[in-house]
Structure formats: C-alpha cells, structure tokens
C-alpha cells in the first residue's frame, strides 16, 4: 500500500488508498479484505493518503492526517485513530464530490427487493437501528448515504463498515452474536467508536440497485413506547430535502428526484426504545 496504494471498490466508487502506517494497514485488511480488488490501470474517484505529518508531531503525541488529492480538509487525529479518520474522511469526500447522485443523509437497507430509508437526525439512532436490521437479514446499502440515481430513482448500495458510538456498541453486542465488531477507539470527537464488519452478502451484492419503498424517520427515546405514525408526504418531502447532502446543488433535478422518491414511498415516523420491537414493526411494515 505504500507504493501504488490499494485500489478498492466500495459500491460505485473506486478509492485509491496510500498509507505507510502499519496499524492502519492491518485494520484495512480486516475491514475491507472481503471487498473486490480493482485491477490496475483504473480511474479512481478518490485518491486518499492516510499518513503521518512531518515535523515535531512525528515523535511527540504522534498524529495521522487524511489527505484527499494532497489536501487535508480536517485537523489531524492522534495516530491510533487512523482508521476512524479514514472512514470519516471518505464519507466527507463522497459527500463533497459525488453529485452524479442525489445523496440523502440516511441509512438504507433492503428487503424483498425494495429499500427502507432511515433519514438521519441527531439522536435518531439510525446507525444502531441499521446495524440491528442488518443482523436480522436485511441487506446493508449504507448506514450514512442514500445514494439515489437521478435517471431512474433507484438506490445504489455503498456497503462500508458501520460505525457505532458509545452505548450503541454494547447494545449491538448484546443484541446479536452475528456481528464482528472491530476495536474500540476511545476519545474521538464522537466519544468511543467501533466499527462493524460489513456482511459478505452486502458486499457481494453491492452492484445490485433497488427502488425505494419506505421512508421512516426514526427517533430513539429512552423508555419511549413503540409508535409508528404516517407522516404527510409534503412534510416528508421537506424533511428529506433539508436532510440531503446535495439537494440544493442538484437544482430542478434534485426537486424532481426527491418528489418522485416521496411519491413512491410509504412515509412514517417511528419512536422506539426497544430494538426488537422496532425491528418487528419494520418487518411487518415491509412484509404486508
């Protein structure tokens, strides 16, 4: 990886990653080992370097930086957080550039040939809910991006390791034995972060797009009774437009694409505190 770098395919994106940080390289093998390797020569969508900055920080409180095309958009992290920095950096890079898609800020999972979208709000618990659904057989499209093709409105998978924060890590660990949780990184700007290895099935089917079927705005509340209510479509439309990474950039096309998506979906809000109950409800929603 230090030389030409690793060329990896995640969903529709080809990413070239260079690094000479051994701990990071090992984690890349752990989390992306099952992903398809791209044969060179190839056109990469993102050229990423995960490296140690020079100067005094090489030795004293060593750091790691994320570079996209030689530019570092964020402050460096401490060296041991190279992997979460990469994950966060790649998300940022996609959100900044991939405007051939309409990008919703949303988890997306598929079942029975259609996609359930879980738009993100602070405290909504979408990543935890997403991880739980995936452990129960849903196909992971993404925990962060609803990638919508503008010509036909289908969602495109972008399977990646799912990050969990703080309590969610234990919640998922207790919820299912069927997941592989990577090392915990303490003291990141989001607290403690750990990543779930992407299920093989999701990676293998990453080339299979699917139409949207349901839009569910989740809200996690401690001790909240389970409640799923329909939400009026114009409200769902507004919420989704505001919640997208690039709705405004896409102009009229964005307007049409989001409109069509909402028209084609059943739209709800979901309050929950218990994962099993929530999943049950979503399964029933989809299976009817």
């Amino acid at each position, binding site marked *: 990886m230090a030389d030409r770098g690793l060329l990896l395919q995640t969903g529709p994106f080809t990413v070239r990653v260079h690094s000479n940080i051994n701990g990071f390289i090992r984690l890349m093998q752990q989390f992306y080992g099952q992903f398809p390797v791209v044969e060179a020569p190839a056109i990469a969508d993102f050229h990423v370097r995960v490296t140690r900055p020079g100067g005094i920080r090489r030795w004293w409180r060593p750091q790691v930086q994320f570079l996209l095309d030689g530019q570092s958009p964020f402050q460096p992290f401490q060296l041991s957080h190279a992997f979460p920095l990469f994950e966060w950096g790649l998300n940022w890079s996609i959100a900044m550039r991939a405007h051939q898609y309409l990008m919703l800020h949303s988890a997306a999972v598929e079942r029975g040939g259609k996609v359930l979208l879980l738009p993100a709000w602070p405290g909504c618990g979408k990543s935890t809910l997403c991880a739980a659904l995936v452990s129960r057989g849903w196909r992971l499209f993404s925990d962060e991006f609803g990638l919508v093709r503008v010509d036909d409105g289908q969602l495109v998978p972008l399977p990646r390791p799912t990050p969990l924060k703080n309590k969610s890590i234990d919640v998922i660990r207790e919820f299912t034995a069927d997941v592989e949780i990577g090392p915990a990184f303490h003291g990141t700007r989001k607290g403690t972060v750990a990543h779930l290895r992407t299920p093989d099935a999701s990676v293998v089917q990453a080339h299979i797009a699917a139409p949207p079927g349901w839009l569910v705005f989740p809200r996690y509340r401690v001790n909240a009774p389970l409640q799923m209510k329909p939400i*009026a*479509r*114009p409200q769902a*439309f*507004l919420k989704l437009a505001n919640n997208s990474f690039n*709705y405004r950039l896409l102009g*009229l096309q964005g*307007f049409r694409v989001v*409109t069509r998506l909402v028209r084609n979906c059943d739209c709800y809000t979901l309050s929950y505190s218990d994962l099993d109950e929530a999943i049950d409800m979503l399964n029933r929603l989809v299976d009817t």
Partner: protein
Amino acid sequence: MEVPQQAKSTTGWKILEEGVLHWERWGQQYALYDSLSGETHLLPEFSARVLQQLSVHPRTAEAIAMALYEGSDENSEREYAEHVSQLLVQLQAAGLTEKIQS
C-alpha cells in the same frame, strides 16, 4: 362589475421570468421550485393559486382577486384583494414576484 378607476393606485405585479416556476402538487399543498433563485417553497393552496394566476400574465392584486374570489359580497372581495396584495408583497421578499415599473 366596476372597472378600477385611474385614480385608485393599483400596483401591477409579475413573476420574475417565464418558465422558471416548477410545481408539484401534494393534496392541498404545493411544492414549488424556483429555478432562478434555486429555492424550494412549500405553499398553501391560496398562495399557489395566486402565483399561478400571475404566471399566466402580469396583473394587479384586484384582478387576481376577481379571478379567484368565489363569493358575491363586494366588501369581502375587497378584503380578499387586500389579502392577495399582502401575499404578493411576501412573495416579493421570497424573490417570486416583483412590481411592474410604471
């Protein structure tokens, strides 16, 4: 029906440009994309109807009221026209309408 007299001040209004307003209807509400400003609006039926009237050709608030008002009471119609007028001013702030230069 009375023709408004020259002495009354009646401001003419117009939309900014033809073909820039794109509509999607959601029951009683209308989503509107304005391709000049790049803004998206969610409008109630009343606002949408007024704007759609104006999209056909420039006119005064009174003329719009005449086209849309469904009652027969003259006072109410004048009040309605007043509402229309206020709405047009609000829409102007949103970059959707402008006054015609006399």
